[in-house]
């Protein structure tokens, strides 16, 4: 993997271990996300890809190994979680908008309470990020009045409003039908084009191939194969070949 020696990665995992009870979910996982890079993490359900993503934002504590995010050691117990989460934006599969707040209030909540931004400034920001995801007209709607795709775009806008240095997407289209998936992927594509550093756990192979600078294929808690998007069409390991279903690997 070539990388410019001058810049340190935004996110780096080194030999990360994580178990749930007796189940080893991450078994020595290492990868990096460079500044401005789009990393797609793929793999079967249970391969540990979502857990790896959640460890980066410290939603799970690791049992071993090192995780560094924006120069901050996330695996250490004394990590400043609030500072970490201002640097990292996370978007979930189930959107998790706050149902009692309008879209605008969903977006202004964190800038106002965490960054002490004044309300008028935060509202201007809400307009800006909603424009980015094409949802300006829904600014005063409640989440329940939006379609799944719109809710997910609003959730992305809410994360963007905190101006994170890296965005994590945890299977953000898995709950959506193909049409709604398209509108969410378009937003993510635009973010990538704007140079946002992103790591996405996804099942959308076509999308991963089109947008990702690099692919990490996880299998049984390990990074099984990694490389440019082309590994999806010409995998070198049998497991990835089986996973992408190309079947063009001679055994």
């Amino acid at each position, binding site marked *: 993997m070539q990388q410019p020696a001058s810049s340190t990665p935004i996110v780096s995992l080194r030999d990360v271990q994580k178990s749930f009870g007796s189940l080893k979910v991450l078994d020595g996982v290492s990868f990096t996300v460079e500044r401005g890079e789009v990393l797609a993490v793929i793999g079967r359900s249970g391969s540990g890809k979502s857990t790896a993503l959640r460890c980066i*934002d410290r*939603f799970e504590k690791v049992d071993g190994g090192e995780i560094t995010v924006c120069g901050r050691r996330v695996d250490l117990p004394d990590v400043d*979680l*609030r*500072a970490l*989460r*201002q640097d*990292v*934006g*996370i978007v*979930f599969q*189930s*959107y*998790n*908008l*706050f*149902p*009692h707040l309008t879209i605008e209030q969903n977006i202004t*909540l*964190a800038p106002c*309470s*965490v960054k002490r931004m004044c309300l008028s400034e935060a509202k201007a920001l809400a307009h800006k990020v909603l424009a980015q995801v094409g949802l300006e007209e829904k600014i005063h709607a409640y989440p*329940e009045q939006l*379609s*799944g795709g719109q*809710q997910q775009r609003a*959730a992305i806008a*809410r*994360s963007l409003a*905190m101006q994170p240095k890296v965005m994590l997407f945890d299977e953000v289209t898995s*709950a959506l039908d193909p049409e709604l998936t398209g509108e969410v992927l378009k937003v993510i594509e635009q973010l990538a084009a704007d140079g946002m550093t992103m790591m996405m756990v996804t099942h959308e192979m076509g999308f991963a191939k089109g947008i990702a600078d690099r692919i990490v294929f996880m299998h049984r808690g390990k990074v099984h194969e990694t490389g440019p998007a082309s590994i999806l069409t010409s995998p070198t390991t049998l497991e990835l070949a089986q996973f992408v279903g190309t079947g063009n690997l001679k055994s």
Partner: protein
Amino acid sequence: MGGHLNANHLLFLGHGALWTIGLSLIALIGGGIVGFVIALARISPLRSVRLLSAAYVQLVQGTPLLVILFLGYFGLAAIGLKMSPLAAASASLTLYVAAYLGEIWRGSIQSVPKPQWEAAEGLALSRTQRMMKVILPQAIRIATPPTVGFMVQIIKNTSLASVVGFVELMRSGQIVNNSLFEPFIVYAIIAAVYFAMCYPLSLFSQKLERRMGRGSANFSLA
């Protein structure tokens, strides 16, 4: 003595009924404040706080209110802490209501879906901000029907305060009956007045629950 039920008797009962409402409000407000603290303590990140508050809830829920009242009025007096019937009844009911409301509210807070906590955490909100701005507003909606329903229990349970000599509706009924010897009529009136206070609350609680039933779809995901 004997005699017939007259307007003075009814006025006396009315006065008792007002104290029943008063004592219920004291119990609701006092128990609400303590109960809120209990609810927060039950989900505290500190294990010792969780254990202590859980022990309190178990202790109170496993003790008859009548015994708590006796302890508060006669028991404390015997060791030198004399309280008026109103103070003893208020304190006992507050402790009692706090244990139940604390549990109802803990359950309501915990039934706000966990991803809501995570989303708030992911946005760098502090624990207090997550609680105040994201979780509690949703928990209050969930908690309202069972809380209103529990108010019915509070009103009925204030009748136990009669045993420490506090003149609320039940005690005023006993006093009137002592002069009239008309237990059927007098206690039928008492029952009717309690029913008149409780039934509207029950109906209101059911109505809220039905509305919540519809609204709770908002919490599920599309």
